[in-house]
């Protein structure tokens, strides 16, 4: 049985809830089961927020992450709050602004997600889509086709080209970090 437990974390307002929904939707398009849950404070923006996605070929009972295969953290605060329960084989995909304490044995990919959205594309609002591109390039947990279909289904009309570009850049910066 193939099962993936994914935790996406960052600051409220970075769009990680939507990223989790898109990832779960992509898994369903691939014909798998998926459950997405979230947790957030009463404040809508700022603060650490997380969105969790479980993907499996079988039925999913418990809906929250217990043995994390993949942690995405876009901010230092969210990394520190949510870096528990990571499997030995679990990977960390971190924005380049996030620093990791010594002694972490997990495979770490440091990817310029926030800068790519803000500086290369000039649109911080697609940070979450760049992040999804990076996650899928590194982990292959959903197919590229399903991911693109899920992104296009959930983003606002008129932003399709921008989001496709964000996805492509996500793949690209992840590839660069893979060869490092």
């Amino acid at each position, binding site marked *: 049985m193939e099962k993936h437990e994914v935790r996406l974390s960052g600051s409220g307002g970075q769009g990680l809830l939507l990223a989790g929904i898109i990832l779960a939707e992509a898994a369903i398009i691939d014909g798998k089961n998926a459950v997405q849950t979230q947790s957030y404070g009463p404040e809508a923006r700022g603060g650490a927020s997380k969105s969790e996605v479980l993907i499996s070929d079988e039925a999913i009972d*418990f809906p929250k992450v217990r043995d994390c295969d993949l942690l995405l953290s876009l901010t230092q605060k969210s990394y520190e709050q949510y870096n528990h329960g990571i499997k030995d084989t679990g990977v960390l995909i971190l924005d380049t602004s996030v620093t990791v304490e010594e002694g972490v044995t997990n495979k770490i990919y440091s990817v310029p997600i926030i800068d790519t959205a803000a500086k290369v594309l000039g649109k911080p609002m697609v940070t979450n889509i760049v992040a999804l591109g990076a996650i899928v390039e590194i982990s292959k947990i959903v197919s590229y086709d399903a991911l693109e279909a899920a992104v296009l289904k959930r983003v606002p009309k008129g932003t399709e080209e921008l989001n496709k570009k964000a996805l492509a850049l996500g793949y690209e910066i992840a590839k660069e970090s893979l060869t490092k």
Partner: protein
Amino acid sequence: MSKKVRLMQGNEACVEGAIAAGMMFYSGYPITPSTEIAEISAERLPRIGGKFIQMEDEIAGIAAAIGASLTGVKTMTATSGPGFSLKQENIGYAAIAEIPIVIVDVQRGGPSTGQPTSPAQGDMMQAKWGTHGDHPVIALCPSSVKETFDLTIKSFNLAEKYRMPVLLMMDEVVGHMREKIEIPDSSEIEIINRKKPTCSAEEYLPFKPEANLVPLMADFGTGYRYHVTGLVHDETGFPSNSTQVADDLIRRLMDKVEVNKADIISWEEENTEDADILIFAYGCVARAAKTAIKMLREKGIKVGLFRPITVWPFPEERLIELSKQVKVIIAPEMNLGQMVLEVERLCNKHTKIERLNKVNGEIIYPEEIIAKIQEVL
């Protein structure tokens, strides 16, 4: 294509189920974690000719839904703990005036404003005892997105069939969780509508019960003029001070559920055939129990699950039967012991009962259930 596969949120599935059941009116006051039910109703209802009203508070939210139901439309309101408290008086009103309505409570940490964004199961006893006086209660408790869809339909069906308020007791995890759901074709969905009088308006006695103890219900505005009150009333609907009328009415209201229990009650069992340990769990906690059972069964430990789907009326008989078979019942709940009181009342003659309670705003994890089982074995 007969089935539509979608990724859907529990709160969204509640609205979709309500619309599939025939909901045409929603009134309420949005509150986390139920807000999406109001939002999506506001978006969906006007498109199908229905009405959505945001009221000034939770009390007005249920009151408007009760009023609208009298005109013959199916109505719903949704809330969370603080709003559920405010709605209690009108739940009693709907019970005595025999007005069908669905009330959804997406439970969060309490008391008072408590923990707005965190799950809890702290309103389970309030569902039964929150409003004063003896009154019938039907409360259903889903543990998945698909089941939220199904049980919302069932809530409407039971409300219409028995002319009473029906409570759908969700929790923050089930309400906010998104998962895969196959929406059935409308032809596959059973819909029950209230029975209407066929006699003339002059002959109509609005609270004269049929053989199943439920009176026929005329739509307001169709010429059948009658009186509706929260006071004890006779078959005409007008208040009465007769002790006989009072006794007959309250007993009939209670009996609508009591004598029809077999039609109303449902539950789920998993791995109970050979179980010598039984987990009693409902809502999102039942999902933790299922994962715990898989892990324990791999080690050869014979654990099963009993999950009440109707929490009220409580599936007493089957649980008593199972309690005679098992060595221990473990009752994990996201409160400090509510439904376990029923388990203890019914089963403590037959087996040992162990509580597992959590009120920190976090779901109970499978590992916590496993640890409890290992502790008591």
